[in-house]
């Protein structure tokens, strides 16, 4: 039993995690005719909590309650994995990534997120403005504008061979490259 637990506690390689994520597509389709997609949950929250007579939020969100259960489950799963099945060792990052980020000004590499950026103390600072407020806003605004996120387009859409999803996926990656290579150095130079 301990051997199994120790095995699970190790970081999972891509060839285990990827296929498991891919299997979510048929599992959701076959147990309830549901299309995999996570960013829609944000829309359902808007529709349920503050529709404000905006047409985009006038629909039967109750029919999509399953999606809210799904993301609640992801939160619980995150808790279980981080507190009961955690890998005791630090993340094994490419030393070049560590060096590049150190050069930018990132100091902490001990958790999933750099604590010198993602902490409550930074909430009202310029760091907080960029990484929480603007970053989060771009994720919510961009995914809905694009009609989906990594799950809805890159995984569900591509699985169904939808070319607009390929366009979306390429755009996601391009946006990420632009931020990482060109904008992050500018943003970090502000702190």
């Amino acid at each position, binding site marked *: 039993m301990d051997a199994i637990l120790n095995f699970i506690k190790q970081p999972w390689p891509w060839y285990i995690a990827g296929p498991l994520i891919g299997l979510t597509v048929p599992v959701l389709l076959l147990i309830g005719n549901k299309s995999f997609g996570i960013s829609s949950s944000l829309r359902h929250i808007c529709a349920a909590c503050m529709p404000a007579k905006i047409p985009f939020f006038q629909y039967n969100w109750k029919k999509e309650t399953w999606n809210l259960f799904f993301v609640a489950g*992801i939160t*619980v799963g*995150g808790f279980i994995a981080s507190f009961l099945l955690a890998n005791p060792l630090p993340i094994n990052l490419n030393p070049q990534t560590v060096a590049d980020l150190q050069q930018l000004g990132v100091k902490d590499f001990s958790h*999933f*997120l750099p604590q010198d950026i993602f902490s409550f103390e930074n909430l009202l600072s310029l760091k907080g403005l960029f990484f929480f407020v603007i970053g989060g806003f771009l994720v919510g605004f961009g995914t809905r*504008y694009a009609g989906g996120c990594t799950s809805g387009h890159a995984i569900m859409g591509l699985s169904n061979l939808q070319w607009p999803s390929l366009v979306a996926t390429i755009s*996601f990656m391009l*946006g990420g490259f632009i931020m990482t290579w060109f904008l992050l150095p500018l943003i970090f130079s502000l702190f």
Partner: protein
Amino acid sequence: MTNDILEQEEFKAELEAIEFEPQNEQHSGESFKANIKYLIIGVLFGIVFVKAEIVSWFRIQEMFRLQSFHMYGVIGSAVIVGVISVWLIKRFNIKTITGENVIFHSKTFNKGQIIGGLLFGLGWALTGACPGPLFAQIGSGFLVIIITLLSAIAGTWVYGLLRDKLPH
């Protein structure tokens, strides 16, 4: 003038076509209790996100800096399994557990996939998270990400508000 009106109407029809993205195609209603199964799938999914370190801001940086194959392997193998599964469901006309035909949605192209996609990409590299991992990060104890999630909800809301004025 009439052309303008026609164009406007066409634009409206196009918008309406992408207005609703129903994800739930099950005909028979599901009770509150039935939703528990989606909670359980979500739990397993969240565990995978954390154990494969997809929730790590650093892993996303590695991906965008082309310094690790990990994330490309995760997404690539997920898509391969997804493509095969969808093909099998279509080829053998596999039904849902309640005996319904599985419904697939075609995506219609609009400029939003490019503009919105780029904007999301910028946010992805900043936050180190797409919407799924945001939830898993909060569950992992990074409570400050609740603020990021609230910003993301606000972003979705503002999109809904401005939608008619944005190019699609």
